[in-house]
């Protein structure tokens, strides 16, 4: 299993992501944004979290034009798996690889805490190790995590089983920390090979640090 982790100026979760995938046994390479290709045999490309280009203009808006994004597009087009975490999710929506957009949190505050999530579908490689309605405990850390998608397109997301996760409380009851429509925390593309979520599974790898629920999510990418 070969993972490439994309690093822009301002990315700050690349080493956590590297640690998480190495812990699961993957070979991991951090790829600087000026690169135009990934190593031969790369299975998964992760666009890691952080504040690419200082979140100037809009979160992810500038990063999407970095040279490496051509390689991300090419990897996704040939069916390779792509995972965008937090700022990576924002970059993938800006790049048009994922539907919708991320707005400023409804409460306007930066949120940094553990949050529970409910699995909406497991008919994809990312969540296949979990069951529908499973509740996982994963940290969130974002200012612009308020997911928006227009009403008509939202229905299409549900029809195609593209809504991955909803925010909830520890008992699985709906809660909404940031104002996202339907408390959506993550989505995938129609082909189910490009995934994006605001929460950080790579920060939930050790129970001693609060949760190891991220293991089951990231393990999905391992054959």
């Amino acid at each position, binding site marked *: 299993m070969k993972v490439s982790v994309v690093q822009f100026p301002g990315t700050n979760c690349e080493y956590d992501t590297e640690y998480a995938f190495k812990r699961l046994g993957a070979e991991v390479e951090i790829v600087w944004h000026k690169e135009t290709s990934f190593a031969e045999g790369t299975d998964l490309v992760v666009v890691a979290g952080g504040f690419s280009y200082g979140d100037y203009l809009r979160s992810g808006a500038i990063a999407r*034009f970095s040279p490496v994004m051509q390689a991300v597009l090419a990897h996704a087009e040939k069916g390779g798996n792509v995972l965008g975490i937090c700022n990576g999710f924002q970059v993938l929506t800006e790049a048009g690889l994922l539907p919708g957009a991320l707005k400023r949190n409804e409460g306007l505050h930066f949120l940094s805490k553990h949050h529970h999530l409910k699995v909406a579908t497991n008919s994809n490689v990312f969540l296949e190790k979990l069951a529908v309605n499973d509740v996982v405990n994963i940290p969130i850390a974002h200012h612009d995590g308020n997911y928006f998608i227009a009403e008509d397109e939202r229905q299409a997301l549900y029809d195609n089983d593209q809504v991955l996760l909803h925010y909830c409380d520890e008992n699985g009851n709906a809660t909404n920390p940031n104002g996202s429509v339907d408390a959506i925390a993550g989505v995938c593309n129609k082909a189910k090979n490009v995934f994006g979520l605001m929460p950080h599974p790579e920060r939930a790898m050790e129970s001693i640090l609060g949760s190891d629920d991220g293991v089951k999510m990231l393990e999905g990418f391992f054959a």
Partner: protein
Amino acid sequence: MKAIVNISLKAGVLDSQGKAVHHALDSLKFEGVEDVRVGKQIIMKLTSTDEAAAKKEVTEMCEALLANTVIEDYEIELVK
């Protein structure tokens, strides 16, 4: 020529910042405010002297980078 681009959230997309500013104005007793929308303004100095060409180019800039048309609208004003 100068291009002034005003970007704001689309009608129907909740503007949390506008709402917070509205609340603050209320608490300062400015009671005549019906609605507040917060946007951003991008001012560019252009080399072009042709208005139509400039409008076309700035529109392309808005679609490609300056606005996220999933959630935002933009208005372009050209000043000679």
